[in-house]
């Protein structure tokens, strides 16, 4: 039924770690569940807290069954009290626990921004490194289905602006698992933003515990003509676009950003230095968004600037809230074709 519709946009996305075709496969959803379960088994300080985490549905299946394995002491349903509960999770982190706080939608996090940005983000620095907050906050971002303005936001830029937070956005099952494990073992607050339309995507998913480093982007396709930097759901679209463009003789280099904060500045700049052209594809609003920071990184570095052959392009959402009507959603959201036109424009203009 469509009110829970989750579409996998692509079934296969190359990760540098999946060269072996014999590897085990699994879904993005499985990846999150596996990472959580493994960490809970390995480290008794890890626990899960959030609205509906003990529910039959298990937050789109990502926490399903944990309650049966770990019981209500470590899989804790929460009142609808986002700010307070974030502070509770933060307090537990201060006491040495590694809480995983789960939100059905990132849209609810503005309620808890005070605890996230004024408290969790600042606690280490404000106390001279004498405290640490190993807190992971999972939240679902991006498209719903006619969900309108209050249930469809992508707020990575908001969190990324605050020093002290880390922000990751996995685009593949492999990264979903590896980044969640890294987040849970990080000694700092991490916003882990997953995309609802990726849950059913399958891909390589090793059974063992492995980490994908926070702060490292992933060069998933090499090319000489244009650099496409893509985030979350846009990664699959960027790969599709790159394939199409390849047929037209335009060789795209595609980078899956994976971590929004801290940004992998080096990889971003070195790729743009190589191709001389930059297209950024983000799931969020363009204005004052993550894509702006990436353009700024290109423009303020001398070597990158000198390599630039033409203007950069942002494929990101227009400056309006999400409309409900599907005919407007179609205009609002972007697809591979928008990346293709952006790349073509970038090539033509330079």
């Amino acid at each position, binding site marked *: 039924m469509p*009110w829970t519709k989750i579409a996998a946009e692509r079934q296969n996305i190359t990760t540098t770690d999946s060269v072996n075709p014999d590897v085990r496969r699994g879904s993005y959803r499985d990846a999150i569940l596996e990472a959580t379960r493994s960490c809970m088994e390995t480290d008794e300080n890890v626990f899960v807290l959030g609205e509906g985490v003990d529910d*039959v549905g298990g937050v789109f299946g990502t926490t399903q069954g944990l309650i049966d394995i770990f019981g209500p002491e470590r899989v804790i349903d929460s009142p609808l009290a986002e700010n307070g509960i974030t502070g509770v999770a933060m307090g537990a982190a201060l006491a040495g626990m590694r809480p995983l706080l789960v939100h059905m939608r990132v849209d609810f996090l503005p309620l808890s921004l005070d605890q996230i940005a004024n408290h969790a983000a600042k606690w280490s620095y404000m106390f001279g490194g004498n405290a640490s907050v190993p807190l992971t906050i999972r939240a679902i971002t991006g498209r719903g289905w006619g*969900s309108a303005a209050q249930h469809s936001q992508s707020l990575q830029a908001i969190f990324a602006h605050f020093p002290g937070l880390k922000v990751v956005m996995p685009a593949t099952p492999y990264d979903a698992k590896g980044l969640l494990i890294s987040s849970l073992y990080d000694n700092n607050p991490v916003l882990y933003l997953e995309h609802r339309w990726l849950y059913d995507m399958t891909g390589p998913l090793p059974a063992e515990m492995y980490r994908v480093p926070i702060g490292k982007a992933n060069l998933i396709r090499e090319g000489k003509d244009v650099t496409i930097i893509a985030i979350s759901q846009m990664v699959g679209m960027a790969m599709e676009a790159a394939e199409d463009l390849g047929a037209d003789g335009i060789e795209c280099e595609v980078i899956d950003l994976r971590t929004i904060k801290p940004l992998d500045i080096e990889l971003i700049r070195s790729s743009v230095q190589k191709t001389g052209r930059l297209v950024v594809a983000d799931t969020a609003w363009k204005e004052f968004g993550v894509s702006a920071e990436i353009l700024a990184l290109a423009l303020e570095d001398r070597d990158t600037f000198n390599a630039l052959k033409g203007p950069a392009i942002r494929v990101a959402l227009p400056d309006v809230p999400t409309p409900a009507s599907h005919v*407007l959603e179609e205009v609002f959201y972007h697809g591979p074709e928008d990346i293709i036109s952006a790349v073509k424009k970038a090539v033509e203009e330079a």
Partner: protein
Amino acid sequence: MSTKSDVNFSPEDLAAIPQKALLELYTTMLRIRLFEEKIVELYPEQEMKCPVHLCIGQEAIAAGVCRNLKKDDYMVSNHRGHGHGIAKGISMKVLFAEFYGRTTGCSKGKGGSMHIIDTSQGILGTSAIVGGGIPMAVGTGLSSRIKKDKRVSVVFFGDGAFDEGVFYESFNFASLKKLPVVFVCENNFYATNSRQSSRQSSCEIANSARAFGAPGMCVDGNNVVEVYKAADQAVKLARSGGGPSLIEATTYRWKGHVGPDVDYEKGARTEEELIYWMKRCPVKNFEKALREGGIVTGETLDAIPQAIFTELDEALSFAIKSPYPKPEALYEDLYNI
């Protein structure tokens, strides 16, 4: 869940309330019920492309409260807002058109089922952020107080919203300033699949009003007469400058949290619970009382559904014939001039 197992209507109450009012209460409930059932019927076509939160089983609250309101009294509501809107006077046409994503929708297709508005009827909008609408009604109350316009503001919210700090902040302010606001908490004992008792330390919503020095009442939310009487009192108190009240109305949602299906199949809740509450149907029990008490003639009652079906058909055909927004509409309405 400490509600009486029967829905009983005292003969005195039925005698004290004008027949016209009783009939309207019934009609409003039935309009809401049939409206929601029409959605259940049509939703699988996937032409209403937005999440729907149905209020089947909870109709008495919207009907009982809104019967006490004037057209220019203010109302704010939440994600489960169809019933509130209908009871407060929005037309089914603009609702369906909205759900079908058309320009003629109450929000020009930009809001979907969670965002209902009709300022001409005092409906100022609904928030899909749990608790988000509560302070707004306090704000409209503050406006009425400054303008001395004698309007009353009503806000509908769930037991889940009672968890949120914003309820506390808003109720305190309303009580502090003695604002004309009626807080109606529809306690259906669940927020999504979370039981009230797994979220609230003391499941006594109405009593908590006392901590703010304001009146709180707990009523059977499946009994439209109880709701009507409680709201009558609260609205009168508000209108006469006596400040806010909290009405907790216990009830049950028959369908799943979102969408047209029941949820016991998925294991979210038990079938017994649903059966228990279906017996306590607010519409059927009230119809029975009106019929058996001889308060409204069978003929009158029998004619009501047909009128509503006609209304529904007209509304639907209005919706479906209406145009979709043009692509340019995406960029409109961001700012008000």
